């Protein structure tokens, strides 16, 4: 059996783990062929890839949507060709109206930002800053849904009574990149404003911020830095005491689940149409559980 897979982006750390999870699992299975395509963050390209899969006569399609609100057209394309389709990692907008031979295995993106921000808030409180704390927010690429969602979740958490002591000095984008984050942090530092935390949309930017702060001699004890993804680099930074919070998402598990579901659909077996895989908070307390996972 051949399964066509279209991933939102190849050079994303997290999605790479997910993709490798699928590939390794398919290798274990007999006679399952994966063909993985890179949609390069382009919804239109992704739709074209689905059509190309259909033209090549694959048995099932796995989609890691670039944009969860663009799934309607994909569902239509696959449904009209009668090819089973599975969404993975991001919850499609039409999740409640999926046809019979479609399913999704995803996590709820709202959790990641919320978990990270809430833990960051608790840390600031425990450091005795409940009189008032200043933080910076580093956003991912503004055209990217995860960035928009996580930033919104940060704000939702900071709006809660318990966390309303936290004041956002400024929020800017560093486009997911460690390099831009370093420059952005140094720019912030050059204005000399006192701050207590940096909440970042992902780990890479958090690490960039840490590197910039260390370079200008700021003690990482006094600053709360949060990220999302629990990458290996982030775990190392956490063990060195620089990064305080990150969030783990079971990428490999999602990958396996997606392949299983796709195979079942292709064989006409019954499947659960919705599978949620939760995010997990990672702090120095439970870091050892995650060292070998991503």
């Amino acid at each position, binding site marked *: 059996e*051949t399964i*066509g897979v279209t991933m939102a982006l*190849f050079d994303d750390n997290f999605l790479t783990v997910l993709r490798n999870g699928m590939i390794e699992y398919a290798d274990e299975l007999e006679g399952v*062929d994966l*063909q*993985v*395509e*890179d949609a*390069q*963050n*382009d*919804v*239109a390209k992704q*739709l*074209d*890839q689905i*059509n*190309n*899969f*259909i*033209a*090549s*006569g694959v048995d099932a399609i796995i989609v890691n949507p*670039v*944009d*969860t*609100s*663009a799934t*309607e*057209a994909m569902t239509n394309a696959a449904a009209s*060709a009668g090819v089973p389709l599975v969404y993975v990692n991001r919850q499609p*907008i039409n999740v*409640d*109206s999926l046809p019979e031979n479609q399913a999704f295995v995803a996590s709820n993106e709202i959790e990641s930002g919320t978990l990270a921000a809430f833990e960051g808030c608790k840390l600031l409180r425990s450091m005795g800053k409940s009189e008032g704390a200043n933080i910076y927010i580093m956003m991912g*690429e*503004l*055209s*990217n*849904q995860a*960035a*928009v969602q996580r930033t919104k979740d940060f704000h939702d958490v900071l709006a809660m009574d318990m966390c309303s002591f936290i004041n956002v000095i400024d929020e800017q984008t560093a486009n997911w990149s460690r390099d831009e984050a370093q420059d952005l942090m140094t720019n912030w530092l050059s204005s000399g404003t006192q701050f207590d935390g940096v909440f970042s949309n992902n780990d890479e930017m958090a690490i960039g911020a840490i590197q910039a702060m260390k370079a200008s001699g700021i003690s990482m004890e006094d600053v709360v830095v949060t990220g999302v993804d629990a990458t290996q680099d982030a775990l190392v930074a956490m063990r060195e005491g620089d990064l305080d919070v990150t969030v783990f998402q079971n990428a490999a598990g999602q990958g396996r689940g997606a392949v299983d579901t796709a195979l079942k659909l292709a064989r006409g077996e019954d499947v659960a149409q919705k599978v949620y895989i939760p995010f997990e908070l990672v702090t120095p307390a439970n870091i050892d559980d995650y060292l070998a996972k991503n």
Partner: protein
Amino acid sequence: MSETTHGTGGLTFDASRRVWPNELNIFGALVLIVLIFEVLGALLMGQSFLFDTQGRFGSIFNEQRLYIIILQVSIVGIIAIGVTQVIISGGIDLSSGSVVGATAMIAMSFAQVAEVNGHPNPKAVFGPAFMDLPVIVPVVVGLACGLVAGLINGLLIAYTRIPPFIATLGMMVTARGVAKWWSKGQPISFPTDSYAMIGNGLGGWMPVFIFVGLAILFQLILKYTVYGKHTYAIGSNEDAARMSGIKVARHKVLVYVIAGMLAALAALVLSSKNLTAQAGMGVMYELDAIAMAVIGGVSLSGGRGSVVGTVLGALIFGVIISGFTFLRLDAYYQEMVKGAIIVGAVVLDQYRQRFASQR
């Protein structure tokens, strides 16, 4: 030594040795690439690339493949038509991809339905007064976006004389900013059914239809109208065009406006086809569009090329993308090989031309 009608002073030339039209070379490259995929398909996959050897469609051809080959380049192809005339006029347009993004966002927000499956539209941008509008509203709004972007590009280039590369690079950055700012990065979804037809009508052939229709129209315009002639003249020698009395500035504005409006049209088709608009839509389309034009024989120094060539360039892109999926080429190798093929197609063309001029 027969035809003498086009010479003066009793001179003759040998009309049988007329120069090979450029477009034929490109067509040759296209056929060659298809052949390579056919051969590799037969060897590696035991399957035909373009033909329906498994009887899946009850036709000679794998119709789905033909469809997707042209469908997947139709939208960038529409942009490439506009870019072609910009390049012929001696300019370049780096803003088209971003204009697609901004236009898609803005137009789509006037094309939303009020209710989705009985629930209020979760992605609503405006209040209900601006929902369920007739399709003409988002279309006009969208085209107006393209017009404004093109107008700004054109005015900057024509009247301040800054290089088109910079003017359109600025527009590229700015328009992408507009796209992100419009709904603060949120995607905009759930268009009306009539809007959805723009990209999905005619059984899904609508984008192809629009692309091919516009290609024919612009091929004729460039070849047979004053507009076309002046576009070539300006690209060939701007000073000469100016000294000959062509209103160069005014003409350039028109060229960029048309390019902007074609990019906007592509945005309408794109967002309609995908039933959503995203701030990141159209990233890198400008480079693909330029590459299609250049592969199709449009000279980046201006004055030379045709829309037919660009269409062939677009088809080469389409065949390559589909061919890779057909061969199940590992995605990692796809990009590497794609780069090589783009270069290869142009190199091939170059050699044929040089050979032709040596005869």
